[in-house]
């Protein structure tokens, strides 16, 4: 049922109901899949009463490429390259879950240097991811400058990530049993300099955004997510912590070397767009500190292997396990069911944005259409992470 409607000043003013008020009619508005305020190809079907949203339905799947089916016809070496792609801003963290699950079922001990290097790279990946959103979110609210600052920092860190792995987005540096190869000579020093440089320039970005009155007015008290919504929808990551849900796998179920690191969990209580942005910003600083701690430890470790020699045909024993990691955008997990073959029987991917975006259907109704842009941007998602 499609009806053409005139929208604009005075439109519909000739429709007056019995009480003398102007009669209104709900309007259905499609935001996306191609729209400047959407990220990638997320589509929202919004029902509007005037400027207020009465119903919102996220329509997803435009980027679905059947990752889980593809996992079932690839061996564990090949899966890593598929699994690092759904959230293209957290490639290293995505790879981790796959290798952790396989290593757990194989009963494999990973060399200590690989554990610390993985922790370091996971934190650098987190910084890269957060910088992207710290730069792109203000753009959506009309501030174009912060992204140049964010990208200057991203380039600094990309250089060290690129040097180690050869990749700028899809690092493909994890292997079952360790990492692809050892760290290049002198890399620790260059990585430390990059971390120090980024930290020293963060106040620029901070002052540029956090004190901006327009930014504050657009985000404060807008799009509030309650802790109950967080639990019911399985919202995680900085979005959950901005609503006061004190949950971070790096502390609550430590994997890699996080058990030996002082992980500060950043939380806020308001649950609005501003809190989410503040969580992201503060997490960035925590991650830089964690990266420094990892660099300290890596520098003091004795020389040793960084990976494990694997058999030509790698078969994971029968059974099932669930490995989850605290990815930059939230929980990323893999439920691995093996029947003892060289390919998994089933590898379920639990991605952060899938759960985080589902909550929009409950969050948007009641908000103004202009706030929709602020709310959407503050959900920090990657469309590939929803569509898998």
């Amino acid at each position: 049922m499609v009806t053409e409607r005139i929208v604009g000043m005075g439109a519909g003013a000739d429709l007056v109901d019995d009480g003398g008020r102007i009669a209104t009619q709900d309007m259905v508005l499609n935001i996306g899949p191609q729209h400047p305020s959407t990220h990638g190809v997320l589509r929202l079907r919004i029902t509007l009463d005037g400027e207020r949203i009465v119903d919102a339905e996220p329509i997803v799947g435009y980027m679905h490429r059947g990752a889980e089916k593809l996992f079932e016809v690839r061996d564990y070496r090949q899966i890593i390259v598929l699994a690092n792609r759904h959230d293209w801003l957290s490639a290293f963290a995505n790879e981790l879950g796959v290798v952790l699950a396989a290593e757990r079922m194989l009963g494999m001990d990973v060399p200590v240097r690989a554990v610390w290097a993985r922790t370091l790279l996971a934190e650098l990946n987190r910084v890269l991811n957060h910088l992207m959103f710290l730069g792109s979110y203000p753009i959506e609210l009309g501030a174009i400058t912060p992204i140049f600052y964010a990208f200057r920092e991203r380039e600094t860190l990309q250089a060290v990530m690129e040097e180690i792995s050869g990749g700028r987005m899809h690092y493909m540096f994890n292997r079952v049993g360790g990492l692809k190869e050892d760290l290049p000579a002198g890399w620790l020093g260059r990585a430390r300099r990059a971390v120090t440089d980024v930290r020293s320039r963060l106040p620029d970005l901070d002052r540029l955004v956090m004190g901006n009155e327009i930014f504050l007015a657009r985000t404060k008290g807008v799009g509030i997510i309650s802790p109950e919504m967080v639990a019911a929808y399985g919202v995680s990551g900085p979005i959950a912590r901005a609503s006061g849900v004190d949950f971070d796998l790096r502390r609550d179920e430590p994997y890699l070397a996080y058990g030996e690191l002082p992980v500060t969990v950043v939380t806020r209580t308001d649950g609005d767009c501003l809190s989410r942005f503040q969580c992201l910003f503060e997490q960035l600083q925590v991650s830089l500190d964690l990266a420094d701690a990892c660099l300290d430890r890596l520098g003091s470790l004795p020389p040793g292997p960084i990976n494990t020699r694997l058999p030509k045909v790698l078969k994971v024993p029968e059974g099932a396990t669930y490995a989850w990691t605290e990815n930059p955008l939230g929980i990323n997990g893999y439920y691995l069911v093996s029947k003892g073959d060289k390919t998994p029987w089933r590898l379920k991917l639990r991605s952060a944005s899938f759960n985080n975006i589902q909550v929009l259907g409950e969050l948007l109704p009641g908000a103004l259409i202009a706030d929709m842009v602020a709310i959407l941007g503050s959900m920090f998602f990657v469309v590939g992470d929803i569509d898998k």
Partner: protein
Amino acid sequence: MTEPGGELGARLSATSTAEAAYGQVTYDVAPADWVATLTRARDDLGFTFFDWLTAVDHEADGMDVVVHLWCLDRREHLLLRTRLPTAGLSLATATGVFAGASWHERETFEMFGIDFTGHPHLVPLLLPDGFEGHPLRKDFVLAARVAKAWPGAKEPGESDAGHTAPARRASRPPGVPDPAVWGPHPPATGAEPAPAPEPDGRPEVEP
């Protein structure tokens, strides 16, 4: 490895069993107890955080529906599983217990063909309009793996062996059934070829 569910299992459901593997315990309940168990897990046992819901196809043995919950206070996992028979792929919806189950059930519905009765809006989520079949079922074969050969050597040493090397048994891509039992056959051959047993002992996939 399956044994009575222990203390937590008994509090979840009177008939539950537990299976421990790789440091994690999976609790099995009957499909009829599904929603009641989830409600008890959320209300009485503190598993309030809904993580995910999915299914695993075990071919002739039916399908498992698996859910993972987390207790934020005690930092505890709960992996809950139920087995549906192939004849009745239907389960009561969990959306009344966890609102977030909605998308997960829609995804499981389109990928496995499991009907979640009582779901308010059970329509495909990720697949395009008009897509036929349930891609994550084991009898859904990735035909592209057969139709288009992998451009390059599949096995080490294959490329430098040249054409003179003795022909290896053609290696099929993983997940693709034997051409003798699956795929198009020339019409002249008449009768269907006898299904050959899989060399690696995996169950056959029906055409």
